[in-house]
């Protein structure tokens, strides 16, 4: 899949005025290879615990509201989903996590530009983080209502499957940060990965599948649409006429087995 290595430039948010376009960072200056080893000791800066996390610097417009992120986009890439969610849910704090330095810098600069140009997107932010290791350092138990895994690295080789963002052991941590009723959104253009994610989520006792229709009935159609269409990867798949597989799950509770 050499395609993945290059992310097409020029998919800037369409609704920008010419002036604010000038402010937006250009992707071609932030390219980076698509894969990162989640197991290695990256030089990361992360809070010791959620209490040590100061969200004020990330969401200065929300200082004093006591709000903390409720949506987390794991592997947010160039940030398309967050940019879309920001205007759909202006009161919900959205945090993107991205392990690649360049890409996370791009998203930062992008958010910074959008905030400056239009005073919008105050409710989105990004951290460079390894979510496979440090998710609980950012989010307290049951603090999130949605988790997004959109077009994650497929790690095609079997030997690399353990580096996939969805695994039976990691699902426990996702369930921990999600509140009961919270939704996990997954989408990919790689069929094998879709089967993998769906299988593991279905088998995990704390998640139950929820159909796209049910989500739309719950009023989450706008999220589903954003999941399909707003990410850079998603748009690329569309351009290439690829297929997209969506699978969503709801966090449920189970009693203790005696």
């Amino acid at each position, binding site marked *: 899949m050499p395609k993945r290595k290059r992310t097409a430039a020029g998919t800037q948010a369409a609704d920008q005025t010419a002036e604010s376009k000038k402010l937006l960072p*250009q992707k071609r200056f932030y390219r980076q290879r698509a894969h990162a080893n989640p197991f290695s000791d990256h030089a990361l800066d992360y809070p010791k*615990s959620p209490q040590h996390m100061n969200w004020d610097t990330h969401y200065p417009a929300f200082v004093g509201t006591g709000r903390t992120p409720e949506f987390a986009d794991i592997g947010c890439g160039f940030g398309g989903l967050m940019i879309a969610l920001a205007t759909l849910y202006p009161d919900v704090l959205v945090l993107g996590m991205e392990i690649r330095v360049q890409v996370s810098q791009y998203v930062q600069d992008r958010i910074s530009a959008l905030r400056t140009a239009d005073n919008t997107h105050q409710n989105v932010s990004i951290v460079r983080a390894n979510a496979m*290791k440090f998710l609980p350092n950012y989010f307290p138990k049951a603090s999130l209502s949605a988790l997004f895994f959109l077009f994650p690295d497929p790690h095609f080789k079997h030997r690399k499957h353990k580096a996939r963002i969805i695994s039976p052991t990691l699902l426990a941590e996702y369930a921990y940060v999600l509140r009961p009723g919270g939704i996990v959104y997954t989408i990919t253009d790689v069929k094998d990965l879709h089967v993998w994610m769906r299988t593991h989520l279905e088998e995990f006792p704390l998640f139950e599948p929820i159909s796209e229709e049910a989500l739309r009935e719950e009023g989450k159609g706008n999220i589903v649409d954003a999941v399909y269409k707003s990410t850079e990867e998603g748009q690329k798949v569309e351009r290439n006429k690829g297929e997209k597989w969506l699978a969503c799950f709801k966090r449920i509770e189970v009693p203790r087995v005696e």
Partner: protein
Amino acid sequence: MSDSHFPHSLLLFSDSGKALVASGQHIQLVDTRTGDILSSTLNASDELKTSLLKSGPIRFIAVDKSWTHLLTFSDDKMLKVWKAEGLELLHERELPKRPTSAAFTKDGQTIVVADKFGDVFSYPLHPAPLVEEPTQPQPQEEEKEEPVQPAEVIVAEPEQKPATKGKRKRKPKNPNHHENPPHARDSVESHTNTSGGTLVLGHTSLLTSFLFSQDDKYIITTDRDEHIRVSWYPQGYIIESFCLGCSRFVSCLHIPKSQPSVLISGGGDPEIKVWDWHSGQLKHDIPVFEHVKEYIQVKAQPYVRKRGRGKILVGEDDPMNGEKEATEEVEPAPAHSETGTPAVEESSPQEETIFVVNKIETVEREGKLIIVFSVIGATALFATPFPDSSDSSNPPTIHTLDFGHPILDFTLDADGLVWVTIDRNLTKGSVSWDGKTIPDASSSSSTETPVKVVEVKSDGSLTGVTPDSKLLNTLNAACLVPASSDGLSKLNLYSSLTSLPKNNRGEEDGGDENGHEGEQNQGQKKQKQKQQQSRRDLGPGRGKKEEGKMKSKIAVLEKKKQVQGGGSGTATPAEPEDNERETKRSRSDAGDAEAEDVTMNDA
């Protein structure tokens, strides 16, 4: 070394008058009253002895509550289960990854094992009988947790036991992990499961230790990435809490018998931490490092990168492994950050004091709880009163008792005396990045007894005692296992000094392809092994990239000034950021992080 005996690396006491001692690859069972050696693997069959030798030094022993069975592991992936009486090896199983810690459940029927990959599996005490003959390497495994149990060797009697091949046999037997495994890319198997274990939970980090709550309803696991996780047991997928707040790896855990809701943890942090584990709340920090550091006589040598990155030690199947075997200073690198050559670095290794708490226990004395702990490579035993919630302001008193040789293990007997084993072959030394112990020139072995007994007073003070004990005599004489210098050199008793600290000052993650990303993340040393890359980064390409980034950034700043009427408050925060970017060549990670914050800040 004049002393040609293995030190006792592990020592355990039962409630029923038995002691187990591990020395090198051997274990011995001793009657604590009579001092008689009840059984010893020294008397085992030659076959078993060869097998033990091959597996290497005993790294871990766990015994079930009734002392009916015990388990051991060494430097390979084999989990050996023994009948305590007679030290009869019942069977050994191949685990998916190198184990780091294990325990029996209360009923003694289940074994729970934590491994280097970060997973916890549970296994029945005895392997299920093989139903189907596993036919050679399975061509296609469609099942997910594939229940093939190829690696079990069931041995009726150790005398005729052929379960010897240990390391060697796993290669052909475990096809799951090798370079070109017969696995379809659409397989949904997430974990190799060599011996039919049940996956309980997993971290994305080496598990250093774990323990059960006293009622066995929770399992508390801890990893190299500062986490302490409290999960339900056996429903390990339900996380009750995280005890977060550590800034370095956690290496040991303890729950005092009299206070089952309390968890005491130690690791690379300068404090010993006391938690309410159910809520994850930190109750006390006991600063100990300042008192301890002068006793740490085994230092860590800095990591010298010789070959290509990541290739140095990569185990055949464990990517986490390869990268973590390298040293990293706990404190920011001292000197040569900027432009020293690799040669300079190699020739001036600066040994570092690395703090790793090895073991924590508590003793009750006149109603007072005393925390007793040992530190890897430290020659003294330490004790401190359990912090009183009322006067947390007072700095704690740390009591020490120095033995002149590094302490390997300690254990409490029924009377609350502390039995300490020391490494009398060493007084001073260092550990290389691959875990080898290198004795200092001034280090000498001595005729000290290898086991010491210590009394803990109610104020926490420690006094050496010499009880008239047959057990002590046995441990100090009859139990000594002769060792060749080769055997001693393989002990690597202090390897965690270099394996636990993080190795992230080297080049970073994947940014290499595009130039400077890797560079800017490099720690303070080491950056120039990638000179080619630097050269590339210095080239015009790099400048263009940075220019391109700056262009839109400057535009943002100007716009901001415009909007906010040119208030200096908006412009200034950008300065440090720009500087950071400019001085990226000094690759300060912190700088990068700062820049990150600033960006968000000034938005």
